[in-house]
């Protein structure tokens, strides 16, 4: 379909190719290792922008598809993007150069290995977003683990080994059951090809008994929920974030958590719609618990990095809630929230990392009154915090607003509870900012701290521009998502009477909300139109 037949392959494997270039360099040639890694990642970002040019926002079909035989007759090298994955690819290529820049000085040991790990992660993450073959998807999915494991374990802080092992075992446990489910799906569909499986499901050629569908949904969902992480499965996240080096946290929070929400939206919901509907109330409750719990726990943290880590639990709760509200607006909001959380939380970690570079601590009480010695850095920090707590017209607002309004259309109570998270986020972020930046300098050591360097200003300014741009120009994004999101909505509520005729579901029918329900449609349309006008 795409006009550039190799574009996605190039985008996926360019980082891996630059790893080969890095391998040729001497290990102590730090300058050139950094330069090449940065040049490669910037080039990668520029090339990935080409996706925007050729992208047709009028269709829900996968674009820039590549389809080649790989293993046997059933496993294919099948790539493609649609409105859901397009911006996640761009998010990845946008954050990687920043992660490289922020590691410029702070990584001094085994520099080569560090940048190799970073670039391998980039390839793996992009691979996850663009794979349309379940096998290929799984390969990339697992491939993200190894370099991140090394990144936490080798360049992390105090309890890095504990955090690294916890991270990898948690995620592997989830994904191995997903592998079994993938194989089971293959056993029924005879193919690993995602569009093909979707077609077979849509046309009713494969029908799972409700019990089986629930198990399959569960196996997929567990893998993704651990990655997100959804409320009771989140305990690996604070450790991994806190112990990871700055770049690791940026990538982890910025992109890797989105692998989970992306997976839910791409696989769980469209492939197993009945099970998704049945489980939606439970999952929404967990998401809401995550929103409130994450926010409350973040409020009481004494460690700045851990605080930021818990904000992810809260913010990604919004994403999951938006997806399981099964409403075009809320799902668009969920995708938007993935992007803006990636930028904002990535930026928060960048800021925290800059403080760490100066003081080698994350303890809030070690800071205080930092705005005096570092006005520029702290101004940016405030700006980023405001974006993260969803202040209009910054990026965080759009996502949360769309999620809340979309959810409210069908589930008033869900939206009401979730909205409290938006209030709480103002509390924990502003309070943290107050303790770090405002007031008198409480620790003498902080008096002489240097303000943001040129490199740091470059990083922060780039992020700030992105935050502002995403806040103002959101229709540029949502316009490209719309067709794909509507397609998902359509798959969730297929016009099949067979499905409707199944035994009554676990929840009352009056709560079944989908975009084609007459009552909600006008509201949805109205909101959508208003958004386009803006």
């Amino acid at each position, binding site marked *: 379909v795409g006009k550039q037949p190799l574009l996605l392959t190039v985008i996926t494997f360019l980082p891996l190719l630059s790893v080969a270039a890095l391998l040729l360099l001497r290990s102590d040639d730090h300058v050139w290792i950094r330069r090449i890694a940065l040049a490669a990642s910037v080039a990668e970002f520029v090339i990935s922008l080409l996706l925007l040019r050729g992208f047709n926002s009028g269709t829900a079909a996968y674009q820039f598809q590549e389809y080649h035989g790989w*293993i046997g007759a059933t496993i294919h090298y099948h790539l493609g993007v649609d409105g859901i994955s397009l911006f996640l690819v761009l998010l990845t290529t946008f954050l990687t150069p920043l992660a490289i820049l922020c590691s410029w000085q702070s990584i001094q040991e085994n520099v080569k290995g560090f940048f190799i790990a970073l670039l391998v992660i980039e390839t793996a993450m992009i691979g996850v977003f663009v794979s349309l073959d379940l096998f290929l998807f799984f390969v990339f999915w697992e*491939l993200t683990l*190894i370099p991140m*494991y090394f990144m936490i374990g080798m360049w992390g802080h105090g309890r890095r*080994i504990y955090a690294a092992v916890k991270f990898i075992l948690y995620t592997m446990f989830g994904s191995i059951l997903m592998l079994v489910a993938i194989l089971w799906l293959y056993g029924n569909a005879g193919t690993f090809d995602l569009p093909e499986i979707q077609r077979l499901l849509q046309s009713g050629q494969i029908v799972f008994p409700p019990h089986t569908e629930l198990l399959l949904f569960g196996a997929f969902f567990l893998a993704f929920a651990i990655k997100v992480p959804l409320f009771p499965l989140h305990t690996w996240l604070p450790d991994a974030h806190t112990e990871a080096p700055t770049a690791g946290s940026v990538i982890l929070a910025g992109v890797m958590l989105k692998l989970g929400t992306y997976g839910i939206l791409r696989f769980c919901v469209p492939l197993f719609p009945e099970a998704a509907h049945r489980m939606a109330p439970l999952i929404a409750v967990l998401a809401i618990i995550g929103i409130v719990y994450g926010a409350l726990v973040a409020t009481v943290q004494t460690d700045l990095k851990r605080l930021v880590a818990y904000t992810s639990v809260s913010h990604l709760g919004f994403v999951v809630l938006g997806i399981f509200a099964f409403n075009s607006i809320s799902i668009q909001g969920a995708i938007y929230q993935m992007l803006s959380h990636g930028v904002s939380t990535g930026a928060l970690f960048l800021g925290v990392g800059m403080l760490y570079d100066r003081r080698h601590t994350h303890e809030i009480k070690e800071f205080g009154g930092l705005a005096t010695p570092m006005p520029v850095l702290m101004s940016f920090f405030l700006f980023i915090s405001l974006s993260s707590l969803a202040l209009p017209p910054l990026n965080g607002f759009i996502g949360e607003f769309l999620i809340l309004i979309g959810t409210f259309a069908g589930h008033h109570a869900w939206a009401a509870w979730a909205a409290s998270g938006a209030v709480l986020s103002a509390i924990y972020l502003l309070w943290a900012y107050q303790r770090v930046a405002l007031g008198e300098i409480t620790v003498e050591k902080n008096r002489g701290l240097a303000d943001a360097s040129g490199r740091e200003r470059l990083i922060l300014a780039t992020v700030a521009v992105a935050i502002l741009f995403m806040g103002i120009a959101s229709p540029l994004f949502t316009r490209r998502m719309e067709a794909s999101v509507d397609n998902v909505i359509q798959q969730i509520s297929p016009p099949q009477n067979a499905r409707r005729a199944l035994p009554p579901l676990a929840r009352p029918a009056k709560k079944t909300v989908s975009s084609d329900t007459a009552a909600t449609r006008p509201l949805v349309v109205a909101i959508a139109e208003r958004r386009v006008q803006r």
Partner: protein
Amino acid sequence: MFLSAEQHANLQRIAPEIHLCLFGLIIMVADPFVSAARKRVLGWVGFAGTLFALAGVYQASLNRGFAYSHLISNDGFSIFLQLIVIGVAALVILGSLDYLEREGIQRGEYYALILFAVAGMGILGSANELVTAFIGLEMSSISTYVLVGFRRHALISNEASVKYFLLGSFATAFFLYGIAMVYGATGTTVIDKIQPALADASSGGRLPALAILGLGLIFVGLGFKVVIAPFQVYGPDVYQGAPTPVTALLAAAPKAATFALMVRIFVVSFGSASDTWFWAVWVSAILTMFIGNLAALVQTNVKRMLAYSSIAHAGYILVAFAAGTAIGVAAVLFYLAAYVLMKVGAFLVVTHLGQHGEKRLTLQDYAGLGSTQPGLAACFSLFLFSLLGLPATGGFLGKFFAFQAALDASDAHGRWIIWLVVIAAINSVIGAYYYLRVIITMYFSEPSKDYTPTAVAPALIVALVIAAAGTLYLGILPGHVLNLAKAAADSLFLH
């Protein structure tokens, strides 16, 4: 020539074994004439023997069919297996050259014994008759009993050898007794003729009890050789005590060959009884995986940990085996190909790092390897990741195809086999912990000060590179080998 066409074809069909035995004999004869300082040359002769044997496999593959009136079946299955075991022997010989030098036990018979053992394993893979298989089993077993005790000044090596010999003989007796019972029930020992004989002997769909009992005894005997639960107890002791290159050989080649024989007997002769032996395999697979993985969790000796890991892997192979279908057999073969590469590779790394007298085998001795010997550490990590089953390695696809084959058979075996796959999947996460622990030690800990790493010998480098490249090849472009495995499995079902 003086040979008839048939004799000529017969010889060609056992060409690999002939080459192996010839080179073994050459080494034995030449040994007295080679001075002690130059015994290494014999190692190269042995390596040449494996290369010739590989050429022999090619020769045999051009002349498929039965040899020696149905005693030998030279089919795709046997050819696949011979490639595996002979390849293992070649890698092990490359890895032994400098090890024997280091330990001061460089002798000709070591290489000769490897060749004889592998010849026996080749017969295990191609035997179409139970007594012939027994001869192959004995050839490979007796040679390996000696090899295990080859560090004869080390007490642990002697202990391992005796243990292996006593228990091994016992197990062989079980196997032989099983053969006798199967013969009693069916009147034949030819593997592909047992099936019709069984059909005649069964009354009303019930198999004769004698045949089932015989099959059970065969399962015990062969189960011992492939080190599956509940016959695994001796395994770790023997693997730990044997010279490390021999451990590499033991963990890979006899296991592969005996699995092949098991597949041939169970699937070809007793395919109709698969509902019966499914349960034995099912129980054994679960026990094997749990025992292997849980015991490996608590090991501090890397060699012993890898020994337990190879028990766990036998369990994963049993998962594919339990399917009992052509796809299952193909999955077993693919798994074996991937398994031997990563396992031999891992043990060869341990061989090098053991240092004189195999003193450095504990986890602590691997601390900081990532910074002192990055190449070796990277190779070892690759093998460990493959054993763990991470994608882009052969180990992952091995598990993948094994699980796929098992799920594919869920029509026949229902939800039990699905649970088997789920348990196997959970086990592979348990396994992750101990493999990762080695990687943690290599990369995340500081090297100890009082140890200076020694350079890796060129021959060992070649072996490691081959194993690593093979592991990656099977992980990324498995298509070719998978097709071979499928063709090999189909060749069994054509009988």
